[in-house]
């Protein structure tokens, strides 16, 4: 008798527990993603592209993965790191988000890093490109790119293609320094020579005086890095100063020839050779579909920032699928490590050791296709890892 009563009690208890856990599961049926990007201020175009791409992906793939409803909470940090930090903290503490994502500039990604570690929340970096970001927390994963990836490649390419003397023009902040350092290392190691080195201020730059110095130095080519969004202004002044007729070609990482602005740059951009991870003209079916869908939805061409956002949200979806809906930080990060897929930019994967992106880097030349300017890829460097980490 006694035993039976005991089992009865046990059954009741088990039933209660089951009920409780069922209730708990119900409460956790949504996975929340805090998307923190600059929607206002100088970096607004980055935020808008990422936001667009995330929305597009969710339209295409539905908002449920592995039985979980995905909810994205969009916040504007205007690329100011203390905003980023506050928003990330509020999203984690109040909104109980499972993942934070976005991060238009490096300081913003840095600001959120300690929170990601403390709260064990994955931080998916969709834009910021300084090499060391992923080392700031074991919960950071990057789906954009690092400047080292593109800058080393263009350095090697320049040496191989008979460019001897280069003048450099880079924005004076961490990604610009990264770009310059990696380019210089590879270019001078191959026997190239840097004849002039200028750093331009990041905010509202007037390139004219710098361009005059470039012209006077008479290099074979000029290496240019300015952040996405400033390329249009740069090329305009480049043409105004007559550099397009001086035979000094523009080379560099692809930020300056962002697809977003490329078409407005005019013919002075023709022939510029850049190394980058994405071109809207990438000849794959996945990309053609992506570009068509993006153009249809937003009436403009997607740039590499949009692709970073598109791949970022895909990574989150794929990781959730792999964990079967388990949305705690450790499981998600474990699932994201080593993940490989076909992105609009080509095949990419997440390095299991550094949680940084491994991807092809393409050498492209600006050409006219159907009356529009495109970066046409003509050489591919396969599976490039971030050189900032492989060196160590």
């Amino acid at each position, binding site marked *: 008798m006694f035993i039976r009563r005991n089992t009865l009690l046990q059954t009741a208890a088990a039933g209660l527990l089951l009920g409780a856990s069922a209730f708990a599961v119900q409460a956790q049926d949504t996975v929340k993603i805090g998307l923190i990007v600059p*929607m*206002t201020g100088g970096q607004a175009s980055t935020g*808008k592209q990422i936001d667009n791409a995330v929305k597009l992906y969710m339209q295409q793939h539905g908002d449920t993965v592995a039985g979980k409803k995905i909810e994205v909470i*969009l*916040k*504007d940090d205007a690329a*100011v*790191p*203390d905003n980023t*930090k*506050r928003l990330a*903290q*509020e999203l*984690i*503490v*109040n909104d109980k988000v499972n993942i934070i994502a976005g991060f238009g500039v*490096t*300081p913003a990604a*840095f*600001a959120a890093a*300690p*929170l990601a570690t*403390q*709260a064990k929340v994955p931080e998916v970096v969709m834009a910021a490109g*300084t090499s060391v970001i992923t080392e700031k927390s074991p919960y950071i994963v990057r789906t954009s790119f690092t400047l080292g990836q593109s800058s080393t490649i263009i350095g090697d390419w320049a040496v191989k293609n008979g460019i001897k003397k280069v003048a450099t023009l880079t924005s*004076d*902040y*961490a990604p610009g320094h990264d770009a310059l350092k990696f380019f210089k290392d590879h270019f001078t190691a191959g026997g190239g020579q840097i004849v002039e080195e200028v750093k331009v*201020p*990041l905010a509202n730059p007037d390139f004219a005086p710098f361009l005059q110095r470039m012209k006077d130095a008479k290099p074979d080519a000029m290496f240019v890095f300015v952040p996405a969004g400033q390329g249009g202004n740069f090329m305009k002044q480049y043409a105004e100063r007559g550099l397009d007729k001086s035979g000094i070609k523009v080379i560099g990482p692809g930020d300056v020839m962002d697809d977003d602005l490329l078409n407005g740059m005019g013919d002075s951009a023709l022939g510029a050779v850049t190394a980058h991870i994405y071109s809207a003209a990438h000849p794959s079916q996945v990309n053609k579909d992506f570009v068509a869908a993006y153009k249809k939805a937003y009436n403009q061409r997607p740039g590499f920032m949009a692709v970073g956002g598109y791949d970022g949200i895909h990574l989150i979806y794929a990781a959730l699928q792999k964990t079967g809906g388990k949305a705690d930080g450790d499981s998600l990060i474990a699932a994201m490590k080593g993940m490989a897929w076909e992105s609009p930019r080509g095949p990419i994967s997440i390095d299991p050791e550094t949680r940084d992106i491994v991807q092809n880097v393409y050498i492209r030349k600006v050409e006219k296709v159907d009356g529009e300017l495109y970066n046409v890829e003509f050489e591919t460097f396969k599976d490039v890892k971030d050189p900032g980490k492989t060196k160590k």
Partner: protein
Amino acid sequence: MSADHGVGEISLRRARWGHGETAFWLIAVAAIFVFSDRYLILTEMAWLGLFALSLDLILGYAGIVSLGHAAFFGVGAYCAGLLAVHGLVKEPVLALVVAGGAAMVLGFATSFLVIRGSELSQLMVTLGIALLLRELANKFSDITGGFDGLQGIVIDPILGLFAFDIFGKVGFIYCLVVLFVLFLLARLIVHSPFGLSLRAIRNNPLRAAAIGIPVNRRLIAIYTLSAFYAGIAGALFTQTTALASLDVFSFERSADLLLVLVIGGAGYLYGGLIGAVVFRVLQDVFSSWTPQFWQFWIGLVLVLIVLIGRERMYRGVLWLPRLVMRRMAFPGRSAS
């Protein structure tokens, strides 16, 4: 005004602690318990309030306009950050005072430039100083971390007892206490003969000089004090967020500060505090409502505030509390 209502007596009466003020601070304390999930934005209000208070000291009381108050905020912020990174002064309260002191030194040094000119040249000079400092911080990136900001700031527990938590409760209470103490000090100062002499200078510097007020010395003193306050606000910012990056010097920060003071009103100390609360609430509401276009709505509200006029708005807001107070003070009248 009869003879027995002299200036001294009027100012004494004004200096008396009112019911409204008690209520204001009680509400601030109550916020600790009521808004327990919004500590971070409350913290921002507290240091922004202190920052606005420092601008109010020079703008509202001495008539010095500034578009570069972020200079002192930034110096305080970087100073507190560097002290923490290099472990020079570990204890936050002490670091706060040191950071305020650093800003004060800069304030004293630049005050000679600022008080020389008219309002327009004051705007230019203060703006220039802030821009200079920003560029310096950018150039000396091995010290300041440049555009990426200062890395690796870890703030020790306050007085060795209260560690900063992820919810920001300790941070908010810390900011609130500092704000309250410095507010009391500011209140004491502006109601002192020194404060009265400042107002005399603001109203008419020539006449003030004629009755024997050392105009320049007084202005230098208040400008230096204001820099100290701004430095403390900056240090609070760094200590509660563990961040210090170039935008602490940004023009937007100085301009926002003027907006805060425009919203709250200058020249009665509470303006900065009320302005900070209203500004942050507006920002928060609009930016979560429409992350893309919130600046438009903030602009619209500002235009409306100016059009309606602050006085009229306050009359509306304070109508009920005033009514209650009056009834409580004179219960007989309500029957009539």
